[in-house]
């Protein structure tokens, strides 16, 4: 028996765009569509020509995963990561190519799959476990462990519709985390719950890897990818852009595909439909002179601005930025209505074109490369748009505190602190 857990050759997956845009066909469409096609076929010189209505979500992907390897998969939204996982988890078939999987696959494509709101926590553990492929005896055996891990013990006989979203997710993750498949496919689960629980999850993932099981780990969290994997695939536009040691793959990923001119613009096709009525136009980094720049100086203030359109008025909208290091660790999050006055004044925004702009004070960031993410949402109502890696920019440390010593300083911030030195004895 081979020591490969997964072998994939020339895997491709094609989707019809029409089917996604219209949600579903009706008989009438099919009848008229068939009529059209017949007419088309009767026309001389016409060839099928269906390419216009289809896209390749995956194109000619080949790779293999050794038994016991923890492989990271990174890529921008829509690059085809999820499609790849779906094919590997046998949820959908490839259009072309071949895959070979040795061992039971457990997928955490989305935690809580099959949870029913009317059922209690206890009932959902059994139902969800069965859906994920566990035997009843296996679930009974692990039941106490699952409950303990989820920290919802006292509500275990309450319908999960009464759970807070945090409790719900914790329970869902716990069930999935206690699966014992040979190959575990994990997608974005670490966004679950509070920091404490996230740490537990990371620990569990590490354990799984330690036990010699194969893990495919998909995440936008670069620090998690770096910590948990040695090797990573980068997927770009449905193709395998590179495979390499994780630090190199992360560098490649973070420096490719972003605008490097200090400006990121969105074409209307790039914005998902659910963002409506919000539409991002551009994100810019401006230096102290107001020039759009890729590099700003640590010792000078800079401006970050997001230009966007609202097709309809939105109430409670807040537009904000995340700042991250290229290691994926958050430096800060800030919203344009953080100030109570701003919230009063702009909580209802009529349709129109806007720029939300903020100033990064001087002496804030350490030298290095940073990633800005964008979020537009109404608190607890809807997240209109989110792009966690919208743009990267460089901070130049020249003249910053401590640059007299030419050594790298740890930490994302480099404030100019007011030090007092008091001489007590002489």
């Amino acid at each position, binding site marked *: 028996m081979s020591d490969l857990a997964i072998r994939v050759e020339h895997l491709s997956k094609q989707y019809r765009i029409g089917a996604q845009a219209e949600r579903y066909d009706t008989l009438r469409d099919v009848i008229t569509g068939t009529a059209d096609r017949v007419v088309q076929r009767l026309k001389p010189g016409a060839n099928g020509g269906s390419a216009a209505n289809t896209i390749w979500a995956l194109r000619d992907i080949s790779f293999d995963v050794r038994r016991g390897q923890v492989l990271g998969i990174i890529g921008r939204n829509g690059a085809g990561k999820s499609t790849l996982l779906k094919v590997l988890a046998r949820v959908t078939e490839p259009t072309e*190519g*071949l*895959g*070979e*999987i040795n061992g039971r*696959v457990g997928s955490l*494509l989305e935690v809580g799959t099959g949870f029913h709101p009317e059922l209690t926590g206890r009932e959902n553990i059994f139902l969800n476990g069965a859906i994920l492929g566990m035997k009843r005896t296996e679930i009974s055996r692990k039941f106490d462990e699952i409950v303990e891990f989820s920290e919802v013990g006292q509500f275990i006989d309450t319908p999960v519709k009464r759970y807070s979203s945090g409790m719900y997710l914790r329970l869902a993750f716990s069930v999935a985390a206690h699966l014992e498949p040979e190959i575990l496919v994990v997608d974005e689960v670490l966004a679950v719950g509070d920091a404490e629980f996230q740490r537990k999850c990371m620990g569990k993932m590490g354990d799984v890897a330690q036990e010699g099981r194969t893990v495919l780990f998909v995440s936008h969290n670069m620090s998690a990818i770096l910590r948990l994997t040695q090797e990573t695939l980068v997927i770009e536009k449905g193709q395998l852009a590179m495979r390499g040691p994780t630090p190199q793959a992360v560098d490649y990923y973070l420096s490719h595909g972003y605008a490097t001119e200090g400006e990121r613009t969105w074409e209307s096709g790039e914005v998902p439909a659910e963002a409506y009525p919000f539409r991002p136009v551009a994100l810019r980094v401006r230096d102290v002179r107001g020039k759009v720049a890729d590099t700003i100086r640590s010792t000078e203030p800079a401006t970050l601005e997001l230009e966007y359109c609202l097709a309809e008025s939105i109430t409670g909208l807040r537009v904000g930025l995340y700042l991250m290091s290229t290691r994926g660790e958050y430096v800060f999050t800030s919203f344009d209505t953080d100030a109570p006055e701003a919230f009063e004044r702009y909580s209802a925004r009529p349709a129109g074109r806007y720029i939300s702009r903020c100033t990064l004070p001087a002496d804030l960031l350490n030298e290095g490369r940073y990633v800005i993410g964008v979020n537009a949402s109404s608190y607890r109502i809807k997240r209109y748009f989110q792009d966690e890696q919208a743009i990267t920019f460089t901070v130049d440390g020249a003249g910053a505190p401590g640059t007299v010593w030419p050594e790298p300083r740890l930490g994302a911030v480099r404030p100019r602190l007011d030090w007092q030195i008091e001489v007590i004895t002489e």
Partner: protein
Amino acid sequence: MPAEITTPTVYLRPSKGWIPLNLADLWAYRELVYFLTWRDIKVRYKQAALGILWAVLQPVMIMVVFTVIFGRLAGLKPDAGIPEAWYPVFSLAALLPWQLFQAALQRSSVSLVGNANLLTKVYFPRLIIPFSAVAAGLVDFLISLVVLFVLMLAYGVSFSWNLLWLPLLVLLALMTALAVGLWLSALNVQYRDVQQIVPFLLQAWMYASPVAYSIDLIPATGPWRLLYGLNPMTGVIQGFRWALLGSSPPDQLMVISIVMVIALLVSGLFYFRRMERKFADMV
């Protein structure tokens, strides 16, 4: 490690044409059928004040309506050999298998779309979904069967050994629902028109089955009985009335019914398997 030896290798490749049923895979996932069925039953009467009592109330209320409209006003008579006063029992004996069939078909035809979140996230044999949707009606049926027995005692109907045929008749009703449900559920993934057609289909089907009236109304001569027998529910209902009330036993029409069901079921299974690979992309 022994686990490695038993670990199956799964091949991912585009499938073409007709796909084998792979019943072994279905068997391996039998517990999931149980859990999904259990979920459907459990959820159905949650937060309903009368709870599972609805399983009894529904057929009984329809029986009352039928007795008043068809039995009294329209003056329809039960099968030859059954006292006219037995009309309520006569109609309830048909309503039970009919409602079992109706609910099973209703649920199975929308089952795939209703479980879209599972189809797009997790692998398991897709046949499990319509299977469990069909099975979920059995508990309701068994509860209302008790009510029927009580009513039979009240009317002084004597029980016979023919009752032992009931499980087979129930199986035939469920197979009919499953056969049609497989076709409709797979079609419904692509064409939501199916959802609109099902209520009408069921209504027409009920009038084409001897639920409210006696099969004696169908002319015994000419092709009519034969055509009527193409409807498998005719055989099921005739069988129920025979086993419970002692009316005339199902005749050779039963054979036509069974052949019909098997043909529908086998074709439905293969059609379902053929469409299955597209479910996750289309649902």
